[in-house]
């Protein structure tokens, strides 16, 4: 689990410092403020640790890290990830709950090599995953061909990793209790299950099977999480990065999904979410209060500097998601 991080001069981010991170963590802010970027940077840290030394992969850690940065941000020169500004240098440090740490940084002239200045991260067996706003089930073969076979830019590593993770076959036997419960709730939400059969994804409802292409976007989105729990790609030690959990979902489904994510967090998973949604923000606030759970909430200002607060202790920070709903209400009231 990531316990703290510092990121400076990375893309749209000027400075963000996370301390005492929780099992649930929330990033909010306007379009272009760097929410997805921040999720991706933390994903790169986690996946580099997880991919390093796995199986017969003999790459050095710095090669794994460089590759992950390259394929996740898809920039020809890693130096392009450095925030524009004279003398700027990208700096990332991430500390884990076992007191291990990774620190790396590079300047705008860096091409591909990134050597960490400090790395005590141990080998890691758990898997982390990035869930993008769009589902991948209907485009899995396109993503595989483009990102894995042809090694082309387009679908970044978050998509390719997800497609590969989904193809792990379902595992028989007893699953973690709360995973089994979560899966039941997820499957109740979309009243079915998705299956990978004969090199295609299908949606099964009762005895009927439907093409994944004619299945609703929201169902596919929920099915992805269900599948990753069912094939045991995700374990209690996993870190899940979710970009816009609200996309393609009805407000009721958003709220149900967040309850399930909270259940998974109680089992041990760490979850980072970036959102624009009124419902996500409100529901997270409720989860924080009801469970006396300190949920760190990060919000960016226009200069790319992020502030951390605690939903349970400080309530919601002043933010445009809530402010816009207030503005709309006032406009409606004023119009009468």
């Amino acid at each position: 689990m990531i316990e703290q991080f510092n990121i400076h001069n990375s893309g749209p981010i000027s400075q963000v410092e996370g301390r005492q991170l929780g099992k649930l963590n929330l990033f909010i802010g306007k379009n272009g403020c760097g929410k997805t970027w921040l999720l991706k940077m933390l994903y790169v840290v986690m996946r580099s640790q997880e991919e390093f030394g796995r199986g017969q992969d003999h790459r050095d850690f710095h090669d794994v890290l460089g590759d992950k940065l390259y394929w996740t941000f898809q920039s020809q020169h890693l130096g392009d990830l450095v925030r524009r500004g004279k003398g700027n240098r990208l700096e990332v440090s991430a500390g884990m709950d076992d007191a291990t740490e990774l620190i790396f940084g590079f300047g705008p002239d860096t091409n591909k090599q990134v050597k960490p200045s400090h790395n005590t991260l141990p080998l890691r067996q758990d898997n982390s995953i990035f869930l993008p706003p769009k589902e991948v089930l209907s485009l899995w073969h396109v993503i595989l061909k483009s990102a894995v076979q042809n090694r082309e830019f387009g679908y970044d590593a978050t998509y390719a990793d997800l497609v590969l993770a989904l193809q792990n076959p379902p595992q028989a036997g007893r699953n973690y209790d709360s995973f089994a419960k979560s899966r039941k709730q997820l499957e109740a939400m979309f009243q079915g299950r998705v299956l990978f059969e004969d090199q295609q994804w299908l949606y099964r409802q009762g005895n009927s099977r439907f093409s994944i292409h004619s299945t609703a976007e929201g169902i596919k989105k929920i099915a992805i999480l269900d599948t990753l729990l069912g094939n045991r790609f995700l374990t209690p030690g996993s870190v899940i990065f979710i970009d816009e959990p609200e996309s393609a979902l009805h407000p009721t489904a958003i709220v149900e999904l967040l309850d399930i994510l909270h259940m998974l967090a109680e089992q041990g998973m760490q979850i980072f979410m970036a959102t624009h949604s009124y419902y996500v923000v409100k529901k997270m606030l409720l989860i924080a209060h009801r469970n006396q759970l300190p949920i760190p909430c990060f919000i960016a200002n226009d200069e790319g500097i992020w502030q951390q607060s605690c939903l349970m202790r400080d309530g919601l920070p002043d933010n445009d998601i809530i402010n816009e709903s207030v503005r709309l209400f006032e406009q409606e009231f004023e119009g009468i």
Partner: protein
Amino acid sequence: MIRVTESGMTFGPFEEQDLFRVEASPFVRRMNGIKACEFVYWNAQAGRLLFLEAKSSIPNPRKSPDEYRIYLVDILEKFDNSLQLLVAGVLRRTDELAGELGKGIAQTAWSRAAILFYLVIPDVPDEFLLGLTDTLRGIMSRQRTLWRADIFVINKRLARKKGLLAAPAK
């Protein structure tokens, strides 16, 4: 001109002839136990008929769900009874009630009036107003449909912005 002080707020000033102080009405007081809102105000110029109820606070729905439900039903009753009382007076079903209505409010242009129900809770944070309004609109859906009325839960800031609150004493 009349000012009405309720729940720590002073509303007005209103022309006496345009105001029906429902809760303080002698007729209503004699009807033991009938719930009514603070006042109804007819703004002929704007074509607005405003039913206003002021409350100093609202129960926490999480900590006291029953109290919260009762509170909202109570508001519904107050608004619904007040509407009936006003109509009964305007239509002179009860001479006493009709006699309490000023000349202005007795001539409400019912067919074109915008009928509005405002629940004013002075210190509710802005971000809760939309949710509370939607909840009360759900409870008062019959009144909304039948009378083509609209409902708002507002705080002191919005009440002042709307010109409903008297200027603070200097």
